[in-house]
């Protein structure tokens, strides 16, 4: 990434944190202004709706231009591949221009041009190598395109820091690995290695903030890949082997391997949850919860412990009770009272609810009435303080 972009991102991280502190009532406006002055951010950063709208409109423009040129030139496969290379190059050059300016870097346009630039180059590469060849080389061209996709998305993420590109690169990489005869083993090995690398980068002070987010995406994709490789249902149904050109005949896995996979299916989500508990990494917690749910579904597939309606209803009841219990425990814990209850509380009055702060920090007469949206934000921030794992 450009050093200027990294500096802008770092300043934006601090300003965003300060915004959260102010919303939660932990700092006042003078302190907030002092922080903003200490960390100036020259970038124009519109809200999510504006960014999505801009990205969507830029995507429409790019796709329409590509289609117009395609209709106008009526090229063959190789010619179209060259055209896509040119369009990809133009889109990437445009991205560089947009990223260089603080007025346009975070508007959503740069992300859209970067995406379409990488996409056009990958599709162009595919057209170039598979153009006039025979079908026996098709398999190799698929592998080469997947490799190109891995590298192009990875380069895009490295250069511009978009976490989505890291995910696309990792997915391309694992699909490529699955096209080899030992694909499942490769998924476990490469996934484990990627987990080890990405986990170290999520908190790295040397990396740009967006690269840290990209590392989180890689972590999730790698864990998902390892889980997919060791999941007993995936092994039984040979899901990964299905990516091979000539899928092997369906043979049931050896009993010992089946048992090992069953144990791993149960253990891995619990391991991820333990890791999340110790590291307090929320991405890991969410991943662990999803994997645990998938493992329970797998268990239900092989062991019919009860009728479906019993399983669904009981799961629903357990989840509701679990959520309510966890919330109550966290709110009642001493650390929660040190965080939320002492600092922020909601009191209901005859005229509706009012968000108030303790009189120690602000006299009652100066308590501000704030909107519901602000109340929600403050409540969320209070949750952030109270929900101490």
């Amino acid at each position, binding site marked *: 990434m450009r050093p200027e972009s990294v500096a802008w991102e770092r300043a934006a991280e601090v300003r965003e944190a300060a915004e959260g502190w102010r919303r939660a009532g932990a700092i006042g406006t003078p302190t907030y202004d002092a922080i903003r002055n*200490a960390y100036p951010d020259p970038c124009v950063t519109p809200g999510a709706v504006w960014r999505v709208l801009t990205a969507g409109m830029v995507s429409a423009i790019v796709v329409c231009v590509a289609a117009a040129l395609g209709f106008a030139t009526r090229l063959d496969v190789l010619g179209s591949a060259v055209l896509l290379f040119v369009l990809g190059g133009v889109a990437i050059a445009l991205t560089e221009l947009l990223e260089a300016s603080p007025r346009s870097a975070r508007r959503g346009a740069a992300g859209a041009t970067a995406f379409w630039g990488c996409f056009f180059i990958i599709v162009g590469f595919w057209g170039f190598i598979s153009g006039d060849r025979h079908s026996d080389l098709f398999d190799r061209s698929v592998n080469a395109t997947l490799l190109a996709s891995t590298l192009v998305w990875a380069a895009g993420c490295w250069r511009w820091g978009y976490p989505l590109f890291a995910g696309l690169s990792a997915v391309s990489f694992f699909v490529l690995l699955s096209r080899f005869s030992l694909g499942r083993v490769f998924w476990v090995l490469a996934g484990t290695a990627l987990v080890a690398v990405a986990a170290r980068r999520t908190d790295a002070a040397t990396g740009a903030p967006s690269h840290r987010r990209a590392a989180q995406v890689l972590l999730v994709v790698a864990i998902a890949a390892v889980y997919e490789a060791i999941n007993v249902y995936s092994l039984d149904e040979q899901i990964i082997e299905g990516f091979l050109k000539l899928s092997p005949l369906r043979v049931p896995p050896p009993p010992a391997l089946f048992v090992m996979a069953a144990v791993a299916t149960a253990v891995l989500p619990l391991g991820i949850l333990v890791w999340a508990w110790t590291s307090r990494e929320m991405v890991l917690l969410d991943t662990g919860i999803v994997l645990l749910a998938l493992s329970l579904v797998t268990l239900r597939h092989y062991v019919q412990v009860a009728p479906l309606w*019993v399983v669904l209803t009981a799961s629903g009841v357990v989840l509701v009770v679990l959520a309510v219990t966890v919330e109550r425990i966290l709110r009642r814990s001493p650390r929660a009272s040190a965080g939320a209850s002492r600092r922020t509380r909601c009191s209901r009055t005859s005229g509706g609810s009012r968000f108030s702060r303790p009189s120690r920090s602000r006299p009652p007469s100066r308590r501000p009435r704030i909107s519901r949206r602000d109340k929600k934000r403050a409540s969320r921030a209070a949750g952030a303080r109270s929900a101490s794992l």
Partner: protein
Amino acid sequence: MNPDVVAAITRLRADNVLTGPQATLFNRVARRHLVSVRLEIRLLLYVGVGLLTSGVGVLVVEHQQEIGPLAIAGALGLAAAACLVWVAGKAPAFSWRAVESPNVAFDYILLLGLLLFASDLGYVEAQFTVLGPSWTHHLVIVGAVYLLAAYRWDSQIVLGLALTTLAAWRGVSLSLTAGVHGARGAKDLRTNAIVIGALYVALAILSVWLARKAHFEEVFGNTGLLLLLGALVSGVLGDHAWGFWLLALLAVAGVVVWIAFGLGRSLYFAEGVVAAYVGLLRVLFELGSSSVAFFAAAFLGVAALILIFAAHRRMIER
């Protein structure tokens, strides 16, 4: 941990911008010693309610012969009543202003109760055909109950459910007669969507104007605009007299964009711009998919982009 924020806290403390207790608290958050699980708890509740209602649905489908319709209807009614009684017991007094939920589970137990009530009503209708040929009217009853519950217990989730149920009532009713009326069915459906959409938009304006649950304005406004603009776009893309629909669409989208710009509402603005853009594509592609049409669509996109940038800049300046 967030190393940038951790470093900033150290610097801000050294510069006396932050006090000691502030720096200590912020450090705990930045170093992830203190994290939020609010989203996860809400997600668990939402999935839990979904699984519960699915389980009940499967039970009814698989075992209705063994259990018997009366027992099923009674059990569903009891379960719904239990949820709603719990909600009524926990709920704060009614207010026309926003009311904070007493706890995190409140909204979801309310949702569960109302979904069970709707299931019960649907089951009773299917088994005993209480309303006979006009069975679609049970959607009105469900929608009205949802609406009352949304206002009484101040739930935007339930309000969204009420608005979609009421819109679905018109849709289902018209779909049933579409076979009789042929192509006219689609027109009627469109007209109904426009009327309901306009009604919702009017309710959004009224809720703010009269200060009666003013925070419901976003739900009313967005649902109404989606119906209204969606129906007009559907008319442009699917009707022979598309020119009339296009004029109507451009007029409505123009008004929406203008008002959204004045109020500083980005989502309304986006809905208006996207609807107008999609409608104008019909003009460009009327003569077929040619390079000229695609180039024109690209130029139209550039014009929309300029409008977006200019509007955003003006909104920030204001």
